[in-house]
């Protein structure tokens, strides 16, 4: 049986060398294009199992359909002819598995974590789920309400609102102008999109657009054979969509918005920067973000610890498949702090651009980025999340290792060049948000020409 299957499939094994990523990565590809990544991990009796698809909110190119990749993630729990959604839940829970899924801008990931003994059943269930998904229009409409419920829980968050507005303002063409949840108006219109959901399944839920990852304590050969047997008959090819590139931004964009309940004012600043196709730029941003904004940075010391102008600096650099935003969120102590905080950010960036770089801090940041890989891969689940995030950026599980290798080599000059090239005012979008009791727009800061969106 194994020999027969093997003849029908090309199983090219790749074993990564030890590097920054702390665990071996064993990669194979089935004949239908499904990539299988097996990561042995010291977690006695436990494993995490992932099925990832290279589809996210980035791929929602049709107008009015933002949020559908995430919506589809929900629908994937509605079952098949062989296993209803209830059946899937009953079996996986009877095996003692924790399970969930998440949708990002560039990928959708389904995961289960639990006793290794249940892996063969999990593999069969997941193969059936993605190869034979079947849900009725009624199920579809019920699930649309659950998605609305998920959005409702986010709506009271000022940080959620701030970033949603920032994206919509910063991007005019590219689908990154909305997040994974989608625009509220599109979420409320989701019940009308049944046929579109089927189209999304046809386009993206295909073996050559999918990756199965297993991390943990398991028999590699047996697990691979189980995956090969369960997924081997899956046919079809994915149909990537053309995402309109974002034109270069030529003038600074500024927005001032009101929030309906009392909050500390927020100031978001984001610059368009390169995506995963430029791994050197990704490495530079992984270093530059904490260098500029994290707790040991000069800016944090000045604004938060010394001058008490800012309560916290939020955000982080999140690499994206396409050019995205390099941004930070300042939670201001009060609206009067805005001007001084803006000026301090400008000075910090100008220092980097001019080559005035604290070399010890640079070394500390690089050390932190690399050590974080060890700290944040302390369970099979967290290890899989890390691996898949970078794998989906470039379609290559070796991408993470390559970027980390570049992190080691980031020089002061690299940061300066990057700051001069990308962190300029014309390339920036800022959003200021504050509580306005009567729902007015916040007043413009003197000297700034920012208008309402």
């Amino acid at each position: 049986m194994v020999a027969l299957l093997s003849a029908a499939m090309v199983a090219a094994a790749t074993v990564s060398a030890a590097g920054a990523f702390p665990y071996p990565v064993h990669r194979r590809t089935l004949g239908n294009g499904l990539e299988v990544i097996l990561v042995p991990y010291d977690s006695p009796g436990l494993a995490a199992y992932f099925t990832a698809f290279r589809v996210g909110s980035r791929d929602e190119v049709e107008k009015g359909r933002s949020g559908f990749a995430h919506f589809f993630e929900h629908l994937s729990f509605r079952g098949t002819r062989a296993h209803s959604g209830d059946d899937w839940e009953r079996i996986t829970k009877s095996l003692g598995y924790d399970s969930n899924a998440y949708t990002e801008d560039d990928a959708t990931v389904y995961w289960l974590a639990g006793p290794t003994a249940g892996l063969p059943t999990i593999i069969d269930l997941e193969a059936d789920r993605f190869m034979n998904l079947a849900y009725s229009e009624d199920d579809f409409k019920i699930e649309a309400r659950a998605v609305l419920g998920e959005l409702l829980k986010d709506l009271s968050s000022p940080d959620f609102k701030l970033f949603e507005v920032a994206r919509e303002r910063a991007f005019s063409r590219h689908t990154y102008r909305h997040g994974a949840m989608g625009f509220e108006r599109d979420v409320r219109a989701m019940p009308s999109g049944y046929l579109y959901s089927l189209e999304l399944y046809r386009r993206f839920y295909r073996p050559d657009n999918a990756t199965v990852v297993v991390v943990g304590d398991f028999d590699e050969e047996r697990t691979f054979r189980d995956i090969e047997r369960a997924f081997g008959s899956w046919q079809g090819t994915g149909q990537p969509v053309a995402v309109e590139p974002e034109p270069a931004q030529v003038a600074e964009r500024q927005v001032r918005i009101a929030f309906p309940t009392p909050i500390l004012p927020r100031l978001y600043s984001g610059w368009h920067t390169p995506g995963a196709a430029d791994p050197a730029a990704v490495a530079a941003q992984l270093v530059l973000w904490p260098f500029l904004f994290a707790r040991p940075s000069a800016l944090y010391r000045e604004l938060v610890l010394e001058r008490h102008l800012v309560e916290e600096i939020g955000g982080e650099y999140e690499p994206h498949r396409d050019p995205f935003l390099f941004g930070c969120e300042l939670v201001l102590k009060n609206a009067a702090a805005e001007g001084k905080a803006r000026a301090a950010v400008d000075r910090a960036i100008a220092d980097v651009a001019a080559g005035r770089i604290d070399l010890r801090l640079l070394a500390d940041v690089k050390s932190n980025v690399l050590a974080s890989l060890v700290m944040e891969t302390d369970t099979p689940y967290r290890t899989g999340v890390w691996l898949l995030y970078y794998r989906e950026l470039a379609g290559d599980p070796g991408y993470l290792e390559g970027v980390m290798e570049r992190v080691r080599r980031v020089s002061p000059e690299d940061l300066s060049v990057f700051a001069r090239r990308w962190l300029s005012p014309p390339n920036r979008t800022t959003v200021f948000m504050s509580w306005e009791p009567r729902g007015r727009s916040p007043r413009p800061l003197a000297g700034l020409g920012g208008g309402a969106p």
Partner: protein
Amino acid sequence: MMERPLFRAVRGAALAFALACASGGQGPRQQKARPAGSPSRPQLVSFSAPSHATVAVRLFFRSGSADDPPGMEGLTKLTADLMAEGGTERLSASELARALYPMAAELEVVVDKETTVFAGRCPREAVSRFVPVLEDVVQHPRLDEHEFERVKSRAVDAIEKGLRSESDEVLGQQTLSLMLYGGHPYGHFTGGTVQGLKRISLADVRAHLRRVFVASRLTVGAAGGYEGDFSARIAADLHLPVGSARPPLPAPASSAPRFLLVEKRSTPTAISMGFTWEMTRGHPDFPALVVAVSALGEHRQGASFRLFRELREVRGLNYGDYAYPEHFVQASDSALPAVNHPRSHQEFTIWIRPVEPQHRLFAIRAALYEIDRWARDGLTREELERVKAFLAGYTLAFDATDTRRLGYAIDDRFYGLSAPWLSTLRARLPSLTLEEVNGALKRHVDPARLRIAVATHGAAELAAEITGGAASPISYSVQKPKEVLAADQVIERFPLGVNGPQDVQTVRVEDLFEN
């Protein structure tokens, strides 16, 4: 500078590990938690696993917001935050952040009602640099005026501009906590009250530190990539005042009305409900109740569990619905329960995630209907076996990391358990019978005791609907099975447990957490 023996020993451990790897490696040599110490000395817990890549250290004090003096609510958390962030005698706040950063070391402080834990973790190679910093944070905090003002101002903002505004769900949960523990030492928000925080001076912080962060309340725990009894070495390094234990706390006795409706300008409606009970991990009925409550609504585990299935999956009311047999805080890196939030007085709670305002009363009734059926009829045999099987596997992840293993062992000490809680639960699961589980349910769950907190816009209108007993029908845009529609007819008029206006109070959000 002379190197302290403790860290020479650690470096020796690292060398021993390297040699072991060179000769083919060795598995983790995990030892059982080794209780030690006397009431006036720190308690010790240690799990050595030399091959592990990181080391977790937890300095756990039996001091929490219940120790806040009246009128200074928030003092324990403010003190702990200032210790963890404000620098040490040797390092300013900024230097402290710089010192930890290259190691990617984690140092956070978590304050609960009765406990505070300084939780540290770092790569194995960094432990000799990290642990002295952690020790200094606890025994030589800087406590300067500038940092005090920053942290105190932030604590006030966290209430005025955060808790009241930024998350309907957290607001609902914290309102429920006020209802359940009014008049009890648990009865104020752990982060304090606005006026309580404003009264606190730096001198108050200094005095409080000497009173509550003391040796007699401390448990030192270590787990992960080291050899030997690391926790004992840390304890020997710490020279804290002996101090004294807090006297036991009385049982809470809530006098809150059935409903507390918080008026907040907000699109969705958040609902939390619950009651206090004296069920803790040491109680013989607790394993049965864990199973029963799991069947009602295991945290973030989907449609195999009743509330989630009936409210979200069948009726599309919201994103999720869960039930908890003890105070629950979600871990920061997973949906698992966070460790080190033990309490000597516990609670049974329900979390209904935000619903659209037009469905708020139906959602409350739907939850009450399900809780009533569950408490009255109990679990089915099939359901019992499924939940037992789930918990047998799921709970394996509860202590699968060094941090979690350590956390559970420390909590076992808090509860005074002779055997580890997770081992007890796992051993008990196979033999639990339907009669035992449903019997425990009937003995300990009385839905009439539920208190219900609702954060919503239009609280006065909702209060009128509740006291008036009006029906709350729901309609759907899709065909529903007959049995669902039949249940809906019961739900839309399901009794809310209200006998008059005195059972429904409304409050403006700006009046909560003030005093």
